[in-house]
């Protein structure tokens, strides 16, 4: 490592450990790097503002957040719950399966795991405890595991960020995320089945046909949101950024006019909430541009590439190493930081090894999502612990089976890339 990189890393690590916000730690580390290497500190403004004002695709993020917040405020979780209950409620630990199914459906409207956990996740936890006789920590574990599907099934904020970093197409990444997202749901459901048996949880009640049909009817309208959003992108009518705004508009029309479960007075609150959520995410992205500039300037990515090349690492070995390292980092660092700082480092090597960048993106995003439920720093676990009052230590223990199952699933994706690539391949061959 060069002198400049040492300075950069040291400044960042010190700032982060002292609990300065990570974005400020990165801005600060960038400034220290420029000062220490005798470069113009003005480059800080140049890098941050040049990149922020030049990256149109990033503006999709506030609109995705807005759409999900409006849908949450319109109370669609209960509608989705009733429909999912009619399908999956009858099995042993049925409410757990329903939770996962609701997460999958909500995933197609939201791009962030925390939004999913705090919205439908909280509704699900209440239902699991009340009707499914789930112990509190198990209910939280199921909802947490379900929520990490949100950024894998499109729309997805991490996939948009990855698209910006790698140059891979947002539409292609979104397409490639669907099958792995659904399989993640299946993996979690299988785990729920095993855990439910172990805890001797009761079976839910079977919902009759006459009750199921109206429940499906009530869930139909919210389900048009992903159709508008993804249909718009894949037919090429809208850019992903425009599609995000159209989705937010459609969410408002749904809530205000069609479902009538959202009042015009709530709009201001939805905008206010969205702006805060987007600012904390996007500030981190802005600050990462500085760190990325410094890393590129010091030639670290190229050095890493040469090292891997001279070690004659194969694609599979590369993926295994990268995933193990990212999982370990994910135990301590925020997924967005890893995505923004470490992925640009790895991309040149991934390219040189001939890895499909769309595939690589989906795999690393799933990896980060597992990090969200990994002790000791699982963001979703902490959010749910503080919202439900269930002690975090108990949640840590309850989430282990889900965490293990998802890692096994990640291993499967590494061994069989076709799971991710076949829909994309079909699209490319057309």
């Amino acid at each position: 490592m060069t002198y400049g990189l040492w300075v950069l890393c040291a400044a960042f690590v010190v700032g982060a450990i002292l609990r300065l916000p990570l974005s400020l730690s990165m801005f600060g580390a960038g400034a220290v790097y420029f000062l220490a290497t005798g470069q113009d500190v003005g480059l800080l403004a140049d890098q941050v503002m040049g990149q922020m004002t030049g990256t149109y695709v990033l503006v999709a993020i506030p609109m995705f957040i807005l759409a999900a917040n409006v849908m949450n405020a319109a109370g669609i979780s209960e509608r989705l719950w009733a429909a999912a209950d009619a399908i999956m409620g009858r099995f042993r630990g049925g409410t757990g399966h329903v939770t996962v199914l609701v997460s999958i459906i909500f995933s197609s409207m939201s791009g962030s795991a925390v939004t999913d956990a705090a919205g439908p996740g909280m509704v699900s936890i209440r239902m699991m405890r009340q009707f499914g006789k789930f112990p509190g920590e198990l209910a939280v574990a199921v909802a947490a595991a379900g929520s990490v599907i949100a950024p894998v099934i499109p729309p997805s904020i991490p996939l948009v960020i990855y698209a910006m970093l790698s140059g891979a197409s947002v539409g292609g990444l979104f397409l490639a995320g669907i099958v792995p997202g659904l399989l993640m749901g299946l993996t979690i459901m299988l785990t729920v089945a095993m855990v439910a048996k172990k805890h001797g949880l009761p079976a839910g009640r079977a919902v009759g046909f006459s009750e199921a049909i109206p429940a499906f009817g009530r869930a139909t309208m919210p389900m048009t949101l992903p159709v508008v959003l993804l249909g718009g992108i894949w037919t090429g009518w809208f850019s992903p950024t425009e599609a995000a705004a159209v989705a937010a508009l459609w969410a408002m029309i749904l809530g205000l006019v069609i479902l009538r479960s959202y009042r015009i007075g709530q709009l201001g609150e939805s905008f206010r909430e969205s702006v805060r959520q987007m600012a904390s995410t996007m500030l981190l992205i802005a600050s990462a541009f500085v760190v990325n500039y410094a890393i590129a300037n010091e030639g670290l990515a190229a050095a890493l590439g040469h090292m891997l090349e001279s070690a004659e690492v194969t694609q599979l070995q590369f993926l295994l190493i990268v995933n193990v390292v990212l999982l370990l980092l994910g135990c301590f660092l925020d997924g967005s930081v890893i995505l923004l700082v470490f992925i640009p480092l790895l991309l040149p090597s991934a390219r040189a090894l001939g890895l499909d960048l769309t595939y690589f993106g989906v795999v690393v995003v799933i990896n980060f999502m597992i990090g969200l439920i990994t002790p000791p720093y699982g963001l979703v676990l902490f959010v749910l612990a503080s919202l439900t009052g269930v002690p975090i230590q108990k949640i840590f223990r309850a989430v282990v089976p889900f965490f293990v199952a998802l890692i096994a699933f990640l291993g499967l994706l590494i061994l069989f890339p076709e799971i991710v690539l076949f829909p994309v391949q079909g699209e490319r061959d057309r």
Partner: protein
Amino acid sequence: MFRSATSRLSVLAEGVTTFGMIALFALFIFGIMMRHVFGQPQTWVDEAVTLLATWLIFWAGAFVLKWSDYISFDVVFRLVPESGKRLMMIVGCLAFIAVICASIYAIIDYIMFMKIMTTDMMRLRLDYVYSIFAVFLIGITLRLVILTARLIFGDWRAALKSLDAIPEEIL
């Protein structure tokens, strides 16, 4: 007196951001309508939404977000007793304030130099466009000064507590 002035200012700052977000959304919809419904693409809209979003992020980042809203790494911090937390935050804040003080002149100088360039579509001068970054750095540094003062001279336990509060939108 001082408290109520800052809280009034923060309500104002939040109002500006909410209005900005509504404007961002409206601009998007206007652009999409013009392109797809009226067949008259307005190329400046893409640039306008990107610039507006950037301004919103830095404005909200400096004046609207609560300390608990910022994404932080607190694995180590949580293990330390209260008085240690106080000391860590004070050192962290002072270090950041020092770094910004050492660099702000060069940053502002660079931004002012950018007056020779404009954006591609709307031909806005880049020194105006980039100025929000300096506003952000100065704003956040001033807030850190206030936080440090609270930690040293004021009710430091309350100040520490404000770092950990759950963001209210989640509640």
